[in-house]
């Protein structure tokens, strides 16, 4: 890959990162002004992304989709351009899609931007710390999701009781819907931040350790699927206001995926070697 094309791709990834931060901020509370900045930077990021892919194609004399990383970069670009087109067509009505699109485009571009040159670990301590941060971030993410799932189930029960009009004494101790909703939103957004950090750290770590060998690994694919479900959960909560039954089911599914991913990661390091 050309030196400058990877540089432009990394610039694009940095600009997309602002989108990721905005998406997280949006989950907590939509801040219109910040969204506009993030969307502007996202647009500039798309330009760098295009430049990067064109340069890559010219330098290598082939269409820049010859391997998994190139195609991931291209796919990220297509998603980004499609989002810009949708936003141009529907204006602010489609703004909430950004919660889903920004993190997705960032992660795809970020992975592609790590291709080369990958420097080896500066020290064993740095390597160990990197791994600990990854594990702690993931675990915090899982715990937050556990609270989201518990909150969602309690929300569902409380909602049902309020609909039934008469509340048996056993349910009187349930927190109010508003409190549960707040808990769900906060734990969901905190969990999303932790898991995303965990995933980013894991990608960097894996590139340094194993180059691109890990990309097809099923356990790792599973963790991306888990992150995707988390992203979907966040997206439906923020853009469509999913509460009650749908939110409870989706959060339980996400929790189950987290548990499976966690189990699947046991001994992964050895399998990758």
């Amino acid at each position, binding site marked *: 890959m050309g030196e400058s094309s990877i540089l432009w791709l990394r610039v694009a990834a940095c600009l997309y990162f602002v989108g990721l931060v905005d998406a997280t901020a949006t989950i907590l509370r939509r801040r219109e002004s910040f969204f506009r900045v993030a969307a502007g930077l996202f647009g500039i990021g798309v330009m760098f992304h295009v430049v990067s892919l064109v340069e890559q194609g010219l330098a290598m004399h082939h269409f820049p989709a010859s391997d998994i990383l190139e195609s991931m970069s291209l796919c990220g670009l297509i998603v980004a351009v499609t989002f810009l087109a949708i936003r141009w067509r529907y204006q602010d009505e489609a703004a909430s899609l950004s919660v889903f699109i920004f993190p997705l485009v960032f992660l795809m571009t970020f992975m592609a931007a790590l291709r080369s040159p990958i420097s080896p670990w500066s020290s064993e301590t740095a390597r160990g710390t990197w791994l600990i941060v990854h594990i702690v971030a993931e675990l915090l993410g899982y715990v937050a999701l556990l609270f989201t799932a518990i909150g969602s189930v309690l929300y569902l029960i*409380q909602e049902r009781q309020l*609909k039934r009009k008469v509340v048996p004494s056993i349910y009187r101790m349930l927190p109010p819907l508003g409190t549960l909703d707040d808990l769900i939103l906060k734990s969901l957004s905190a969990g999303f931040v932790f898991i995303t950090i965990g995933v980013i750290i894991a990608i960097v770590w894996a590139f340094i350790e194993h180059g691109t060998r890990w990309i097809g690994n099923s356990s790792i694919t599973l963790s991306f699927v888990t992150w995707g479900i988390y992203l979907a959960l966040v997206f439906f909560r923020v853009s469509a206001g999913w509460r009650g039954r749908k939110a409870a089911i989706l959060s339980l599914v996400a929790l189950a995926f987290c548990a499976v991913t966690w189990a699947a990661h046991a001994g992964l390091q050895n399998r990758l070697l």
Partner: protein
Amino acid sequence: MKLLLTGLSHKTAPVHLREKLAITESSLPRALQELQRLGAAEAVVLSTCNRVELAISTADDMEPGPVLDRFLMEWQGALAQFDGHLYRLESREAIQHIFRVAASLDSMVVGEPQILGQMKAAYAAAKAEGSVGGLLETVLTRAFGAAKRVRSETGIGQMAVSVSYAAVELARRIFGSLSGQKVLIIGSGKMGELAAKHLRRSGANKIFVTNRTFSRAEEMARMFDGRAVEYTAFPAMLHEIDIVIASSGATQYILTRDEMQRVIGQRKNKPMFLIDIAVPRNIDPDVDKIEGVFLYSVDDLAGVVNANLKERGKHAEQAETIIAEEVELMMARLRIEGVAPTIVNLQEQLEEIRAAEVERAIRRTPGMTPEERQRLEAITRSIVNKIAHGPISELRRHASEPEGNHAIEVIRRVFHLQR
């Protein structure tokens, strides 16, 4: 004195029948006068939205039943429509009923405090008309005392027992803290106003009021430091509102399912609490099927309150025990009061016989010294007292017993006591 109570309550008659028998505040004096004219020694009328009751007392030689029948015939015309709904309670049963009503044990929302105030108002109205001042007055004042005892000795008064307060409790269960929640009041019904007052006091400080008559909305908005909204403009702001209190006189639904579906979509399913206190209802009941919308009608709210109260059923049981004690005390007191004339009668009669016999003995025994006279007086008094002691003790003992009337009657006959 004889006591009789008749009436309808939420337990025996639907609202359309209660309405027919209702006696308005303005016609109350006329009703009380009429009852007295027909022969009632005392009369009290209690007319609230949940009950209409007439209580009268008559002299011992007069039956109170026909007095009430004639009154109802003259006042309401066709009585047949109330068949099976009117209850009629005499003496002890009537007293017990009055005590239970005052203690709010017979209320639609058991333990609600308004009924005692309403009964006191009914008593004050009767007092103003001069239609109480005997047995019925004693019963009422004792009933107020018993109700006070129930409130202070049980937890019945500490619960969320009013419909409007139940609305606040529910709002808290939905939103947690009410501060910052936006409330919209549609219409100017009294219940709606009350619910809004409670919500305001509980922290909901953004209140909007709308009404077909804008000046009325402005007037109400001033009461709550709120903002008046044009009636045509309120649907556009619904998605910003968390709690809607509908109590307008509209005869058609002002909020439909389609409309609310749109609103909840705009709110991204953020919960909304709709309170429909209007009759006929203002909000389509189907609205409750929408996820995230909690629609409570006045019946639902009453249901919630009653469920609360069931939880604390032991307080009501305790209250019933207190009422039973108080009724027993009242009955004993009445019986003792009732037997007093008989005792006086007996003592007077025996004294009369004694005095007459002593007089005759003195006349027949010339030369009786004053000392001898005194001794004779003392001996005869002692004999009479000893004879009277038995019957008087029996009268007192039987007076405090529920079946004592028979024994009292026998003693009266044995001694030929006049009524």
